[in-house]
């Protein structure tokens, strides 16, 4: 059965698009036919992170409006056989996507893919609601910071009450917490909320912890999902998260600060 997975957060800029690209690519790497759908109408960005921005001809709204077929609009990844992207429209019309239209496209995608990853826009308004409405599972991307945690909790409330699954009374959306931009050093100094603090408050299952990493900017500069940088901490952390999503037991890495030499601790190296 195909699965619809929404990557959502409430708060903006916490790493949803980075995560959608990484998780989608990771699933395809493991042999699952996957499409990543950009729901951020007016602020298309997934194409840049995936490195396919120059090959966008038709977008999500074109398909909803019947101006293009799905096969015309789907962009096949250059690196992986099993990976596709559906770009967001750059229209300024906020009502370009309707629940009915989105439902139709997602159903068609479900017939052809194992995983449909929905990259949600920020906020809790219409765009974010549409991105999560049809979801089977949700990855709630959270930064270890007060406003992000609070917004994630609000999003969890919406997932539980304003989705198709809640409306028709089927099993609730399966929720996963992905803590990103984590800085173990600051956590150990008591300057940043730790994993346990955040899981205590949000009380959902931890899918992974992605460290704050220079590899993410480097990857986005090049249009390569960071998970393909398998030497990087963030890439490896995303890779573990994909394995956990697929049901593997993998212990969490990158939760402790890197050991520094005595002199490094005394004389900087921050």
């Amino acid at each position, binding site marked *: 059965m195909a699965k619809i997975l929404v990557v959502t957060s409430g708060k903006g800029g916490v790493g949803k698009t980075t995560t959608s690209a990484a998780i989608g690519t990771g699933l395809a790497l493991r042999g699952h036919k996957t499409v990543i759908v950009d729901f951020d109408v007016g602020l298309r960005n997934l194409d840049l992170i995936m490195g396919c921005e120059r090959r966008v001809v038709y977008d999500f709204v074109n398909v909803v409006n019947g101006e293009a077929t799905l096969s015309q609009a789907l962009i096949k990844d250059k690196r992986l056989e099993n990976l596709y992207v559906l770009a967001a429209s750059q229209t300024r019309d906020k009502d370009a996507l309707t629940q009915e239209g989105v439902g139709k496209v997602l159903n068609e995608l479900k017939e052809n893919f194992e995983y449909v990853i929905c990259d949600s826009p920020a906020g809790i308004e219409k765009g974010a609601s549409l991105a999560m409405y049809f979801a089977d599972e949700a990855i709630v991307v959270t930064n270890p*910071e*007060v406003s992000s*945690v*609070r917004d994630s*909790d*609000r999003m969890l*409330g919406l997932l539980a*009450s304003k989705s198709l699954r809640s409306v028709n009374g089927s099993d609730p959306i399966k929720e996963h917490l992905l803590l990103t931009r984590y800085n173990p050093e600051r*956590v150990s*100094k*008591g*300057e*940043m*909320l*730790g994993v346990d*603090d955040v899981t*205590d*408050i949000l009380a959902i299952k931890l899918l992974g912890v992605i460290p704050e990493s220079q590899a993410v900017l480097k990857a986005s500069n090049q249009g390569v999902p960071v998970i393909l940088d398998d030497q990087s901490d963030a890439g490896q952390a995303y890779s573990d998260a994909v394995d956990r999503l697929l049901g593997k037991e993998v212990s969490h890495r990158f939760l402790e600060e890197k050991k520094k030499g005595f002199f490094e*601790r*005394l*004389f*900087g190296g*921050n």
Partner: protein
Amino acid sequence: MNIFDFFRDRKKSNTASVAKERLQIIVAHERGQRSTPDYLPALQKELVEVIRKYVNIGNDDVQVALENQGSCSILELNITLPDR
């Protein structure tokens, strides 16, 4: 970081625990509000109108609250009638 900061660091107040405490309070509060159904305000308004047919009461004289206790919900109505 110099050698003095290195020692002072250990004692710096822990702002993460302040953050956690504040979050626990606000999140608990917001969850409480969230669990009230959307129809409560409308229900309250209509009750006021019905009662007003018989007794003269103000808009705030009817309080409606829904409490969940295990598997059952209790709808609590608190109606303040004017002095006689």
